[in-house]
């Protein structure tokens, strides 16, 4: 109960903090729209040459590229891996450690604060654009499963982000790890190309990695190519990674020495 109340208090602050970066929200919307335009044109050219490429069609693809942006905006945490790394290296993290709340809940609240504004400022406009492009509306059950999968995608993202940040307790820097994660996640989450278009060995590999939880699973549930059972797998990844990052935090705290000043 106390944790919940703390979380609500931090969230209220984070909502106000995030609002002071209104330009960022507008820029984020512009970036997402530009990305949609590029991929719309590319996939139009692909499906013009080959209307049934990989067993998909252009309407599916339009929905896919829009949903990738929507899911990104609703589940991506702020740049916590670099923030945490800086905090650990320069000792600034001590501010959080001496306060009476769990660090994980703080970062969760920070993420939710950033995401909350993007619902109205980014996801909603994107959705309206999508409707204009001929976006297929899913059934209520599919929409329900899609919405249920978003929190798990968010927790998966957040756990990976915190794991990378905490790695600095053992490594000299984590920039290389972050870049490698960006590469793996862009490709194996299905954000760049639907997993259905992958060559078989790669799509098999993608199914065993946690990254698909962040894009492929929510999209599959909305577009109907995945069933409710994938929600269970996604939830297990989210829980497992969350616990792992908690464990890392406990270990990192023992590792850490910060001088008072």
């Amino acid at each position, binding site marked *: 109960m106390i944790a919940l109340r703390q979380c609500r208090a931090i969230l209220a602050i984070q909502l106000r903090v995030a609002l002071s970066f209104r*330009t*960022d929200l507008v*820029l984020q919307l*512009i*970036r997402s729209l*530009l*990305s949609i335009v*590029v991929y719309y*044109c*590319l996939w*139009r*050219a*692909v499906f*013009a*040459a*080959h209307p049934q*490429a*990989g067993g998909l069609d252009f309407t599916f693809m339009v929905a896919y590229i829009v949903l990738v942006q929507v899911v990104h905006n609703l589940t991506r945490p702020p740049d916590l891996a670099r923030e945490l790394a800086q905090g650990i290296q320069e000792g600034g993290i001590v501010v959080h450690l001496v306060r009476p709340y769990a660090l994980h809940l703080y970062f969760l609240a920070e993420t939710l604060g950033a995401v909350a504004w993007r619902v109205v400022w980014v996801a909603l406009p994107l959705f309206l654009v999508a409707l204009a492009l001929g976006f297929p509306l899913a059934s209520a059950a599919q929409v329900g499963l899609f919405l249920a999968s978003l929190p798990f995608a968010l927790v998966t993202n957040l756990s990976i982000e915190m794991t990378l940040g905490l790695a600095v307790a053992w490594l*000299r*820097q984590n*920039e*290389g790890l972050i*870049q*490698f994660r*960006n*590469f793996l996640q*862009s*490709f194996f989450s299905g954000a*760049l*190309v639907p997993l259905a*278009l*992958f*060559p078989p060995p790669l799509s098999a590999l993608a199914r065993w990695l946690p990254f698909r939880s962040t894009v492929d699973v929510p999209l599959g549930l909305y577009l109907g190519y995945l069933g409710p059972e994938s929600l269970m797998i996604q939830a297990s990844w989210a829980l497992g990674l969350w616990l792992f990052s908690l464990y890392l935090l406990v270990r990192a705290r023992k590792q850490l020495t910060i001088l008072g000043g």
Partner: protein
Amino acid sequence: MSIRRYPAFYFAFLGKTLKSRAADPGDFWVEVLSVALYQGLGIAFLSVVFGHVTELAGWSFGEVLFIFGAFQVVTSLFYLFFPWTLWFSDHYLVRRALDVILVRPMPPFLQVMAEGTGAGLSELTGVVLGAGIIAFASQTIAWRPTATDLALFIVALFCGVLILGGMFTSLAMLGFWAKATSSAATPLMEILEFAQYPLTVYPSWLRWAFTFFLPLGFVAFVPSAMVLGRGARAWVGFGWLWAVGIWAFAVLLWRRGLRRYESAGS
């Protein structure tokens, strides 16, 4: 100081930056890794797409890869020479680093260029990898260039670098009038992404816009199309007109901006 000393000055600055960068080779290698991964992602995308189609808007895999490689070379050279355009407003205007520049007896613009160059040195990786992609693509499509082709290609790519440099320099100069343009560069960097694919992918109004309004077509597509025998050489001449025009505009903004700049004394 005479104009003959300028190159020596430029290299002295570059040497200084190199030395400070050499203090942390780890960072350099991490940047090399991220450039390689970023390009790898683009190639992975194209490979998956071409696993299902044989051509994209009339261009084969080899040709699209060729354009992609040219784009990597041009943008890497741009980030190598003009990274300062991204932080000009914040560093030189808001934090007044321009004060130091203005009291030194060298052309201010040369100093800004010289200070910025070393920052993106790992972009050289991008140039090398991009050239590698072009070489691989040339093998795939059995491209046999003559010496003239190669010379024209390099001249055209150089024009692309100048166009990008001029665009971002002009944008940075706007900082003299509006204090927060550093964020305006972000959408422009996103728009750059359009330039890495054949322009024929886009609807005609966008193709028109990328030729006559925002000359992104000249970054990679026009040079590649020309040497692959699929575009007229005259277009490269038109690209140079763009480059000269943009730089004339940038110089004008720079002169006016400097006159407008008031340092905060303290």
